[in-house]
């Protein structure tokens, strides 16, 4: 018996000896809500794909935690007198993970690739790319473009030689960039593993080994955190927050999400396809739109339906983004005033309208839409709710002849100008703008502000114009902002982590104690 015990102890001692050096190496397991669609960042604009683009690649610029671009592969830049030609000085001595040098050719190649991929909206402002020398690249824009730097963040620099040799499909299976982490293995829906790039230009990462695990079921993801199988998870379900908080050694971290939940209002068409009982469009009357906004109790929606895990707002973007208006008046809740305005507008008995909303696209979206319907109905806008599954919702609410009141969400990574050109610019005026103007908002003054903002290369000037535009459309009730969602993370107390506005969990910025 004693001999056996001794043997066991010896084995344990040996195990400790061998385990010791491994324990010194910091590693982390991250539980994500879904797998990456691609590891080739030029193929998709989607949160997890973008996150992986941050691990293995760099842009000319990278976003900081607040979404502000900062120098990365480009060390410095300047705009020419024509306001069109941007000269970027590239960082010297940077290599891809296989040791080949990063040069201006890779920049030109990346932009060419993205022009024909799903990232083409980030390259649409670029007219041409000139390789001046291996460490200098000139980018010429079609028009003065203040958002060029933000757009460049999305273009993760691809290795020209390696990717051309492998081809698109094989590259996606064996990705490589200049980023802080080197790809090791990708088993679909199971894990992605990476190791630290010790030669990273920004300094070697503190955490050496990364495992990303997609766990799509929220309860399972929480369980994996509670059992210690993963170190940090995203999207802690609201119902589990209390349980996670009460567990020793585990914490919940939150921050406002980029995603705004808001209403599109059919504000300018003479006839509203979603108006049920009238042959005209009452929503074209500003008094009716004001009544609509007044009838909504945002605070109660946030408190009762979102369990407090959201932020009621009257803004289009988060603070810090261009187009956030410092002194924007709070959204008021006043059903009596709403009724009065409706009566004034000639609808004392109200009118019937469809509200189109997704069910299962955003947290609690169906319930929020139900609450909206009942609040609006109480004030005299008799809402009939049409809930759509997420796969058919965006098809149904495309601008056209189906809906007049749409609840949806938008996550804006750049500023109000970008958001407005997609969602609120008059349709038909400019083929590149107003593509998803579901409320058919049409306001010449607003459009000219957006055009003006898109015509300057000066970010500060753009900011002033966009603040004006945001104030204009909110006062005109062309948009009814409801709330910003909340991003919730669960983590072990030993993990040092600050949530980012783009929702990426970036190990390079983190540490494990």
């Amino acid at each position, binding site marked *: 018996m004693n001999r056996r015990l001794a043997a066991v102890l010896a084995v344990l001692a040996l195990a400790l000896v061998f385990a010791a050096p491994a324990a010194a190496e910091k590693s982390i397991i991250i539980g994500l809500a879904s797998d990456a669609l691609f590891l080739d960042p030029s193929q998709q604009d989607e949160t997890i794909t973008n996150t992986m683009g941050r691990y293995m690649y760099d842009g000319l610029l990278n976003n900081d935690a607040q979404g502000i671009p900062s120098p990365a592969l480009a060390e410095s830049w300047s705009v020419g007198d024509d306001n069109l030609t941007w000269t970027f000085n590239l960082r010297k001595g940077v290599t891809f993970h296989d040791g080949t040098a990063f040069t201006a050719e890779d920049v030109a190649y990346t932009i060419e690739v993205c022009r024909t991929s799903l990232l083409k909206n980030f390259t649409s402002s670029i007219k041409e790319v000139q390789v001046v020398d291996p460490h200098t690249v000139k980018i010429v824009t079609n028009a003065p473009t203040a958002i060029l730097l933000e757009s460049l963040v999305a273009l993760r620099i691809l290795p020209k030689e390696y990717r051309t040799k492998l081809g698109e499909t094989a590259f996606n299976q064996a990705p490589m960039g200049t980023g802080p982490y080197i790809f090791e293995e990708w088993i679909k829906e199971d894990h992605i593993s990476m190791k630290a790039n010790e030669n990273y230009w920004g300094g070697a990462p503190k955490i050496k080994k990364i495992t990303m695990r997609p766990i*799509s*079921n929220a309860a*399972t993801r929480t369980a994996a955190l509670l059992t210690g199988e993963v170190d940090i998870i995203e999207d802690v379900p609201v119902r589990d927050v209390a349980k996670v908080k009460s567990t020793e050694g585990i914490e919940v971290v939150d921050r406002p999400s980029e995603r705004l939940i808001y209403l599109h209002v059919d504000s300018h068409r003479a006839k509203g396809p979603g108006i049920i009982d009238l042959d005209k469009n009452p929503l074209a009357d500003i008094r009716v739109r004001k009544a609509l906004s007044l009838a909504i109790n945002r605070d109660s929606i946030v408190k009762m339906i979102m369990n407090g895990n959201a932020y009621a707002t009257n803004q289009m973007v988060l603070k810090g983004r261009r187009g956030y208006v410092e002194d924007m008046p709070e959204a008021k809740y006043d059903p009596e005033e709403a009724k009065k305005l409706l009566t004034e507008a000639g609808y004392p008995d109200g009118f019937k309208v469809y509200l189109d909303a997704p069910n299962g696209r955003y947290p609690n979206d169906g319930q929020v839409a139900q609450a909206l319907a009942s609040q609006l109905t109480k004030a005299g806008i008799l809402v009939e709710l049409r809930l759509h599954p997420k796969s058919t919702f965006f098809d149904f609410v495309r601008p056209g002849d189906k809906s007049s009141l749409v609840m949806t969400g938008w996550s804006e990574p750049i500023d109000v100008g970008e958001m407005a050109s*997609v969602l609120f610019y008059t349709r038909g005026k400019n083929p590149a703008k107003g593509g998803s103007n579901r409320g058919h908002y049409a306001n010449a003054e607003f459009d000219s502000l957006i055009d003006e903002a898109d015509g300057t290369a000066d970010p500060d000037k753009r900011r002033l114009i966009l603040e004006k535009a945001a104030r204009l459309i909110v006062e005109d009730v062309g948009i009814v902002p409801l709330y910003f969602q909340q991003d919730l993370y669960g983590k072990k107390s030993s993990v040092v982590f600050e949530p980012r506005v783009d929702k990426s969990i970036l190990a390079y910025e983190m540490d494990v104690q």
Partner: protein
Amino acid sequence: MLKYLVKRFFQTAVVLFVVSVIVFCVMSFTGDPVLMIVPPNATDAQIAEARIALGLDQPLWVQYKVFLFNLLKGDLGISYIFKRPALTLIVERMPATLELVFLSVLISVAVALPCGVFAGAWPNNPISRAIMGGSLLGISLPSFWVGILMIFYFAVEKGLLPSSGRGTTDTLFGIPFAFLTRDGFRHLILPAVTLALGTLAMLIRLIRAQIMEVLRQDFIKFARAKGVSWKSLLFGHALKNALVPVVTVFGMQIGSLIAFATVTETIFAWPGMGKLLVDSINTSDRPVIVAYLMIVAAMFVFINFIVDIVYTLIDPRIDLR
């Protein structure tokens, strides 16, 4: 036998053809895949361009014709989302699903046979009543609930087993399997048991009913009169005669387990093909959905074929012709 095989082959072709038509028509009623693959701020022209690139601007019957010709060449289409062949996507996830289903089938049979026979032979025994009560629970409880409960009891509260994922795998014939490693096997237990519960409960009830029915027949009385022992009477005479309907149901059940282990896979973050189906439905990735359903249909046809063969082994009186 050859004549039977040929006949069977033609039946299969007809079944698959009909399935493909139905699946294709149903698919066209789901969401518009084009909107899923263009940037959110795409212009109408870009959307039209993407539609043409995918061939979705053509009338449905033309799309179907293209699909059918490609199918005959063994090409099930390219995923809109992943830009890789739909068949590859499904096949690379199949081993994970198959090993999960295999273990849960083993569990079902190992538990259901003795329990079912016992409950059929001694229906009034308190143990039989307990078995039947339990099986009722097994049938009624939804697997997503059982799965979550298992995770919270065995993984979170007791810390006995891992909560999710596939763990470490090892390769066999070049294919990675989890059951080959200790860690992988530990990961396999909870999802396999969860998946087994429904089938298990149903098999118990079916076997019990069959055994009770068979035990009432004359040849059993005769065998008892002849002095055959209880054990060989139950497992030799009664069970063998009770098995034909059980095998039918069991075959269908294996098919559904492989095809629709979706819920269990999602809960346990098991990287199988069921999850692929759910994700593809959510993103309107038509080629993957269609390929998946075609494979499932082919699999069911194949399993039924095997079941028919098994009939003749169990009961020589059954003639395939």
